């Protein structure tokens, strides 16, 4: 960032706070604002760094020292984080200013942004519709222009789903590329922290700052890569795969937008290849059976002794349902009927995805099978889970996946999802860059 731009960090922050003050009562994207942001902006101006003065909002399940990591729950309503998550430390080191903690589905259990203890979030890009979840507040804050970028977490699509519904860019990195130390887990074998931004370049910059191995976290031993410097929209020689199974599960209006986006990629030099994912529909039950068990296990620490309330006494319906299911499956698992079977399917789905990615450089397709519903509309749990059908395979396989705006249906944003081989974030970002701005 230039010297002149550095001088603008405080102004940038003031502008963001003004906007939040003016419009967030309606959108409800923040749970808490950082009272030290002004001081941090001043320090960032002096220190510089790759993100100098950039305002970043953080999902309420990632620890930021001195702010509440509530997970949008009553259980952790008053839990003040005693340390910075590794990703937050890295943001600060590069001059980012933490704006505050964003709203989300309670304990990240949701795909709509409606299940927060602090009330639902409104979609700034499609009034009256859900913003998607669970990183609802992070995506909404970026879409509303409250923050330059945000951090979210993605267990089965929680970054990509709201990015698609709100018309912004979201990236779920390869499992193990970004340290999870300081993230309050939903399902630890699937969770990843990732960036949400208005454009691919900013998302790439944030990713290169937060990625790479860390002493504190058990993860892949990888060096950070300068993704933003190596971005290229030239797709010559790049093979883009489209699975025909996407057509069977996606609504026609979303498919129309996605196919137009694919044709634009083709016009920029990419070769389109049809691939097969015969077990695509099995990914959803596989994912949920694993999540129920891992979530149940993760919530046993909320027994009312260390963290305020006993979770079962104060949580919302979806959280309770998942705890019940996790508890039931764990008791019945001696027969290997649910969890072990789900793990076997997980291997099958991973193998299938990696095989498809042997034939092509990336897979591109829809992010969600349907458009976001109206806020307050009552859906059954299975109808709600169906939003995740196309995003969970990437989590099960541990591969990177990103979403970039592709167009609109009746004014509602639709995102193109791009998936790549493990650690091939650069190719994925390049394809996203090519798709960007031509929606």
């Amino acid at each position, binding site marked *: 960032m230039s010297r002149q731009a550095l001088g603008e960090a405080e102004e940038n922050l003031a502008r963001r706070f003004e906007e939040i003050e003016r419009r967030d009562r309606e959108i409800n994207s923040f749970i808490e604002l950082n009272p030290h942001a002004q001081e941090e902006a001043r320090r960032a101006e002096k220190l510089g760094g790759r993100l100098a003065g950039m305002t970043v909002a953080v999902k309420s399940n990632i620890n930021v020292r001195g702010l509440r990591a509530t997970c949008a729950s009553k259980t952790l309503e008053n839990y003040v984080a005693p340390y910075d998550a590794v990703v937050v430390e890295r943001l600060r080191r590069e001059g980012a200013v933490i704006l505050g903690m964003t709203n989300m589905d309670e304990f990240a259990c949701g795909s709509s942004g409606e299940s927060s203890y602090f009330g639902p979030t409104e979609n700034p890009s499609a009034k009256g519709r859900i913003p998607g979840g669970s990183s609802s507040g992070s995506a909404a804050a970026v879409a509303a222009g409250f923050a330059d970028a945000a951090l979210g977490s993605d267990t089965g699509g929680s970054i990509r789903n709201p990015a698609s519904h709100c018309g912004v860019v979201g990236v779920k990195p390869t499992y193990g590329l970004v340290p999870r130390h300081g993230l309050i887990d939903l399902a630890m074998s699937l969770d990843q922290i990732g960036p949400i931004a208005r454009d691919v370049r900013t998302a790439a910059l944030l990713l290169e700052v937060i990625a790479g191995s860390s002493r504190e976290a058990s993860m892949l031993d990888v060096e950070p890569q300068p993704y933003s410097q190596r971005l290229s929209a030239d797709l010559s020689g790049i093979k883009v795969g489209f699975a025909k199974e996407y057509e069977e599960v996606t609504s026609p209006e979303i498919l129309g937008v996605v196919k137009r986006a694919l044709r634009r990629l083709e016009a920029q030099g990419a070769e389109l290849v049809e691939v097969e994912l015969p077990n695509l529909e099995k990914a959803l039950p596989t994912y949920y059976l694993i999540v129920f068990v891992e979530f149940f296990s993760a919530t046993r620490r909320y027994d009312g002794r260390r963290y305020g309330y006993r979770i079962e006494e104060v949580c919302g319906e979806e959280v309770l*349902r998942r705890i019940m299911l996790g508890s039931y499956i764990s008791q019945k698992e001696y027969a290997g009927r649910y969890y072990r*079977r789900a793990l076997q399917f997980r291997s099958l789905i991973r193998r299938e995805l990696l095989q498809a990615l042997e034939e092509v450089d990336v897979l591109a397709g829809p992010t969600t099978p349907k458009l976001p519903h109206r806020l307050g509309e009552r859906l059954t749990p299975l109808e709600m889970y169906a939003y995740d059908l196309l995003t969970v395979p990437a989590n099960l396989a541990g591969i990177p996946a990103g979403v970039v705006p592709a167009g609109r249906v009746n004014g509602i944003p639709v995102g193109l999802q791009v998936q790549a081989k493990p650690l091939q974030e650069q190719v994925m970002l390049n394809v996203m860059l090519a798709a960007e701005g031509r929606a």
Partner: protein
Amino acid sequence: MSNRREIEREAEHVLRELSKHLEEIELEETYHVIDAESLRADSSPELRRGFREAALSIAPRRDGAHYVAEAGTWV
């Protein structure tokens, strides 16, 4: 919670529906094979040479070749 019974009922339905989809395919049982070439037998400890010297060198209190962890006193 007043609608707890309702949530339980929905949970049962969810489990039935989800697990049904995973019953259709017969999967092969796979096992993770551990390479046991460098396995140490319990009866053959690997002694770390120099460990005693290293431990003694950082001991806050020592008595000859012994590390003083706690000194009893008459009360």
